[in-house]
């Protein structure tokens, strides 16, 4: 396997609170890597640091061999990272369809430069076609023209996933993709994520709470506790790890 992302010695503090302490983190190309840990363990902070939403106080991050430590989030996106947020971020006043159009057009601008910035009135046919394909793939038909703010919770998450896919990323980062979903929606989301991972050959990095989702998707599991990694490896091995059992179950 080649290495997709490599983080070394990551430190992050918020004021006096040290959230991440000397974290080393590897992500191999093609794996579905899930980061778990109790609330407040630093999962989301790690996620933010890797995606470029937060600056790190120390350490280095590389993406496919390139040092991206000093790059802002949008620059990392240009190098092949797509991400979602814990609470889905979409453009609320646009229709779901327009949300997708904006995502596709942004990718085109990254690929082709400012040439694709100007145009009159309607998005180009190719862009619309691509958006329609994504709509079908993610099962978003039906309420496409309503303002995105009126979509259901699950549909918002789906739309955000579709927008991330529109960027054609190498690495897709999903921050709690099933947070706030019902059991049946969860199963559906797991199926969908597995399906797009297969189809696009994506490397996945997720944080997740729900154990069914974790074991349904993960090819590798990392456990974060008090801002440090205490176990990392194949899911069934991590499950058997003594320290993990101690942290999660209080067993000795």
């Amino acid at each position, binding site marked *: 396997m080649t290495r997709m992302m490599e983080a070394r010695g990551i430190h992050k503090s918020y004021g006096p609170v040290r959230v991440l302490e000397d974290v080393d983190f590897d992500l191999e190309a093609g794996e579905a890597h899930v980061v778990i840990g109790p609330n407040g363990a630093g999962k989301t902070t790690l996620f933010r640091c890797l995606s470029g939403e937060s600056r790190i106080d120390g350490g280095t991050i590389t993406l496919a061999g390139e040092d991206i430590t000093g790059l802002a989030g949008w620059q990392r996106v240009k190098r092949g990272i797509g991400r979602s947020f814990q609470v889905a971020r979409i453009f609320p006043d646009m229709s779901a369809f327009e949300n997708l159009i904006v995502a596709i057009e942004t990718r085109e601008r990254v690929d082709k430069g400012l040439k694709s910035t100007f145009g009159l009135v*309607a*998005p180009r046919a190719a862009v619309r076609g691509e958006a329609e394909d994504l709509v079908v793939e993610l099962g978003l038909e039906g309420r496409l023209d309503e303002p995105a703010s009126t979509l259901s919770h699950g549909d918002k998450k789906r739309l955000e996933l579709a*927008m991330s896919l529109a960027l054609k990323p190498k690495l897709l980062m999903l921050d709690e993709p099933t947070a706030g979903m019902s059991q049946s929606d969860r199963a559906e989301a797991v199926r969908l994520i597995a399906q797009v991972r297969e189809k696009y050959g994506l490397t996945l990095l997720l944080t997740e709470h729900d154990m069914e989702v974790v074991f349904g998707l993960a090819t590798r599991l990392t456990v974060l506790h008090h801002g440090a990694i205490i176990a990392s490896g194949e899911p069934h091995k991590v499950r058997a790890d003594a320290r993990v059992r101690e942290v999660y179950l209080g067993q000795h």
Partner: protein
Amino acid sequence: MIDYRRRMRANLAIAVIGLVLFAVFPLVANSGLVFLAGLVAVNIVFGLSWNLLFSGVGLLSFGHAMFFAGGAYAMAVVSLRLPDLPFAGGLLLGAMTGGIIALVFGYIALRRASGVYFAVLTLAFSELVHIVITKTTFLGRNDGLVGIPRPVINLGVASIDLTSALAYYYFIIVAMAVVAFALWSFQNSPAGRLIQAIRQDPVRTAFLGTDVRSWQLTAFVLSGTIAAFCGAVMVPFAQIASPEIAYWTVSTEPILFTLLGGAGHFWGPAVGAILFGAIDYATRALYGLSEITVGMLLLGVVLLMPGGLLGFLLSRRTAARRLTGSGKRVPMANAEKAT
């Protein structure tokens, strides 16, 4: 799917109706009113330029007077000192002046400031420009620059004489229509959609791979350029560039137009500018009444109908259609939003 062709036709219809009304206005009104209508036409585009920032990238500028005045003074200086330069050259220089002011101040202001800070910083910059104008002899200090001639445009084979106020009025209408059309098509281009995305969620936009700050600066420069163009076009009409146009109350005018008309609609500032002109004219007999009326209206809009007048009217129409079932199943509210 969104019916883009329908959207285009609707807007074209609005633009044509507006143009025709402005064109026939001099037939029924006296020269004082025609002058006022010319200013309203300039104000419409001034308001549109401001709303490009507000409803576009989500920046609240309280300093648009600096661009308007920048363009106006550039035009005035060029007309008085370089009479041989073609008229178009003056307009171009005027617009560029605004663009440069916007580039310099925008670059500084956008480095750290956002929200209320951005508003106050633009207010301070604008006041800076105002003070410089009132204290610089070259710019006429407190008296301004007067006696600015209206041009005769030489096209080689023929020339267009714009020296009469009426002829210049028609020039204004054409110029403003062209700029408004350009702005509208910009807003509906990929770049325009991106700019709306930035206001709605800058973080999401960044994580689609967009450098949000440089796009905000781009929008600021574009907005400043257009506002300055408005100032440059206005100066030969009024034949004077006075420091009052750099005063901070001028900065608040496009805010009034936009909020009164409706920020969420492309033509909102236009509706607001016309309404504002009408109120100003109707209350001219009693000092203070105009401010009170506009202030009360603006308060009412912010507190009771944040969509502005246009938003209010359109949402009522949508509601009526839904009730009677005569509308198509395609929801109107969104189809007509920001078109």
